């Protein structure tokens, strides 16, 4: 038993969590002058929410290596070999292999997708008819708040990070990420963040219910469930920043010889751009929630107008992150689409350089438009017009990408399998969502439709029709690489068509009822919208069911699918030039890149070659040698 509690792992993690709860209580108790009666329940919960995840990570062993290293003790050999997976149990421990971490990410975030989706089903059930069906208004507010928070912070953002985690080192010809241990920490912060958000349903007064935007002063005066958002977001954000930093360092310092920036696959470019956004923007959401936490827990006055605080400041700080965040949720998808379209059309990506530059243009413009979420917020009115112009202009680089993809397909040999179908679905649906976005940037119109179902329609066209379609495309595309098995093509196509159809039936009518005047974030609405809402709800249940096809396909194919060859799609990028799944350290020898990533149509063209001197095992260093060798 004692041995269990001392060795890194789940037993120790549980023990450490208990320790964290106890220590938090002790801390408060001593801070209150050793008087138990002053230790309030919520104070203890808040301190525990902050400490428990860190202790949990410590218990699992995420920090062992660093602690040994920092204290000058010899680092333990297990820490070097926490790499690779031979059984499912290896997915449940601190693992430093980017491929294991990638799969941990993807599986975990899809788990959260189902949780978030299930909440959407409950919301649609409540909304099927006006008046009250299943949940009371405060529970409903909690549902859509947790729905959006989970799907944004624990699904879309991390699932992209997971796919990139798996693929990027392979694509650039690196044996692993630059900081494998930091990578593991990034991942394990997510289950902690998600658990916190879901635990909020057990808080007195219900879960956090001020939307995923958590505007002050509603969030500073809401019941205590709100702190589960405030603190949960911190962990998700910390995870994002750490991963982004890791990607940037990996991409800058670990590319294979010959892999110049303009020979990188566009997925790498996309994640490079996204990571820049994350490193620069995410600290703002952290700060916005610090403010809320300080106002709530310690009585600070950031948002108390009566004491000289400024209510609108919250929105400026929040959207300075959360607008770039919508591109954090879209740019990696753009990268996936570039890969899939080139390979499935058997043509080079059209206008490669403009594709890369337009990503950077979106990154830069993305920081100049945040106040388009505040057009009706009552901020200084002169800010609105400049923000309208910058917002509209973002359609230009995005348009360049869309048109280049179309040109990529032109005269190609289109293989219409599941990843390609989702890519094509993405093209059409994202354009629709983007266009409604451009309409929203036009001030006279947005004043009317802001905070209505028109926005809800826009959200889902860009996030579901945009991001999620690219995620599906990417998951199907790399499924053979990640699992070594082929997915079932028939089921994949069925999944696409049901999803595509019911997605449109669910979300298209929302444009209409929005313009007609149905506000968002309401459990109850006026009689005139009843028919449309019933139709939407029914369609949404089928949309939910269509997801089960995907789930079944993934589980069944992973267990018993046909074995995949190394390169089933006949693609040129490096991840396909190794076995499926790749060897533990990715490459026996680091490849040398000799050409562009998409030279389809040139007979015999290759992107990388694997020549070079064979090194002996003794000469090689463990994964992550760069960050870890005790050379100092």
């Amino acid at each position, binding site marked *: 038993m004692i041995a269990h509690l001392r060795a890194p792992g789940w037993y120790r993690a549980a023990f450490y969590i208990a320790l964290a709860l106890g220590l938090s209580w002790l801390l408060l108790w001593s801070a209150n002058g050793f008087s138990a009666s002053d230790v309030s329940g919520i104070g203890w919960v808040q301190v525990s929410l902050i400490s428990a995840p860190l202790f949990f990570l410590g218990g699992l062993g995420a920090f062992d290596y660093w602690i040994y290293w920092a204290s*000058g003790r010899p680092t333990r050999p297990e820490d070097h070999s926490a790499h690779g997976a031979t059984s499912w149990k290896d997915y449940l421990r601190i693992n430093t292999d980017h491929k294991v971490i990638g799969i941990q990410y993807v599986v975990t975030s899809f788990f959260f997708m189902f949780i978030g989706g299930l909440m959407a089903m409950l919301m649609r059930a409540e909304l099927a008819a006006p008046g009250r069906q299943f949940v009371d208004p405060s529970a409903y507010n909690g549902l859509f708040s947790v729905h959006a928070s989970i799907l944004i912070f624990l699904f879309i953002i991390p699932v992209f990070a997971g796919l990139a985690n798996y693929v990027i080192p392979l694509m650039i010809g690196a044996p*692993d990420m630059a900081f494998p241990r930091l990578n593991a920490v990034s991942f394990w912060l997510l289950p902690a963040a998600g658990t916190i958000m879901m635990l909020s349903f057990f808080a007195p007064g219900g879960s956090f219910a001020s939307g995923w935007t958590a505007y002050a002063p509603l969030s500073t005066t809401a019941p205590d469930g709100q702190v589960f958002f405030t603190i949960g977001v911190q962990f998700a954000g910390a995870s994002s920043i750490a991963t982004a*930093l890791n990607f*940037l360092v990996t991409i800058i310092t670990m*590319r294979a010889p010959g892999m110049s920036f303009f020979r990188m696959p566009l997925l790498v470019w996309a994640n490079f751009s996204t990571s820049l956004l994350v490193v620069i923007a995410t600290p703002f959401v952290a700060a916005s929630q610090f403010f809320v936490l300080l106002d709530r827990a310690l009585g600070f*006055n950031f948002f108390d107008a009566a004491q000289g605080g400024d209510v609108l400041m919250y929105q400026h700080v929040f959207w300075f992150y959360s607008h770039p965040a919508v591109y954090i949720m879209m740019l990696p998808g753009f990268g996936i689409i570039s890969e899939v379209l080139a390979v499935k059309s058997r043509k080079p990506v059209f206008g490669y350089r403009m594709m890369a530059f337009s990503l950077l243009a979106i990154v830069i413009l993305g920081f100049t438009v945040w106040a388009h979420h505040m057009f009706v917020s009552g901020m200084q009115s002169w800010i609105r017009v400049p923000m309208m112009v910058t917002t509209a202009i973002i359609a230009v680089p995005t348009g360049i990408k869309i048109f280049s993809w179309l040109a990529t397909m032109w005269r190609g040999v289109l293989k219409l399998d599941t990843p390609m179908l989702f890519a094509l679905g993405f093209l059409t649906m994202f354009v629709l969502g983007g266009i409604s976005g451009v309409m929203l940037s036009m001030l006279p119109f947005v004043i009317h439709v802001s905070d209505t179902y028109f926005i809800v329609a826009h959200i889902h066209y860009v996030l579901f029709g945009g991001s999620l379609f690219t995620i599906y495309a990417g998951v199907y595309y790399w499924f053979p690489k990640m699992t070594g098995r082929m997915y079932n093509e028939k089921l994949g196509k069925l999944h696409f068509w049901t999803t595509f159809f019911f997605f449109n039936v669910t979300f298209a009518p929302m444009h209409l009822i929005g313009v007609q005047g149905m506000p968002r974030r309401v459990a109850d609405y006026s009689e005139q919208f009843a028919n449309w809402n019933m139709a939407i709800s029914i369609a949404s249940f089928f949309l939910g069911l269509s997801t089960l096809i995907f789930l079944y396909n993934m589980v069944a194919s992973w267990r018993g699918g046909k074995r995949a060859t190394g390169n089933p799609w006949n693609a040129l990028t490096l991840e396909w030039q190794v076995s499926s799944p790749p060897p533990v350290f990715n490459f026996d020898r680091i490849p040398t890149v000799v050409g562009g990533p998409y030279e389809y149509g040139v007979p015999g063209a290759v992107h990388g070659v694997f020549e070079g001197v064979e090194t002996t095992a003794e000469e090689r260093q463990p994964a992550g040698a760069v*960050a870890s060798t005790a050379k100092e």
Partner: protein
Amino acid sequence: MEAATVHHHHGPPEANRSSRIHPALLGMLLFIISEVMVFGAFFTAYFFIRVVVPGAEWFPFDGFELPVAVAGVNTAILLSSSLTLHWAQVSIKNGNHTGLKVGMLLTFLLGATFLFVQINEYATLTREGITPQAFAQGTIFYGLTGLHGAHVFIGLLILLVVTIRAFRGHYSPDHHDGVEVPGIYWHFVDVMWIVVYTTVYIL
């Protein structure tokens, strides 16, 4: 056939170095960018509370005053810690282990003094009625200086690790990244203080 060979490997091939910059250094620089943005968000709050909000006022007002001079001396203390740290870094590059140890120790003590003085200042201000709960100006004063103080605290922990390792003889003229990289963080904390001090106390 790949599968068969894989299991004989005991380590990965060494990654190609595609940039001259040291990964740990680059990582630290990126981390500092995101730290700058955290401060940026707090400065945004400061800007709104000091300038934008209707009827905005700033210290001194209603007889509430900030101890500009004491904080100025404290600033000098923190800045000199950057100098001692630099001295320690130069020392190890030249193989001067004593210089490294003394330099690190001095840096740590100066940093700790800064923090001590700041905590004292908080206590005094609280007695004079300037608290974060009293008014938004207090909120952002404590917010900004407290955020910085937290960074000093973390910086001190890191310095402590470096100092311990220095005393254990871990660094050499060829291997001193472990002094270099944390050093950048400490310099950043110092530079940030100049910005905080200037905006909060002087402007």
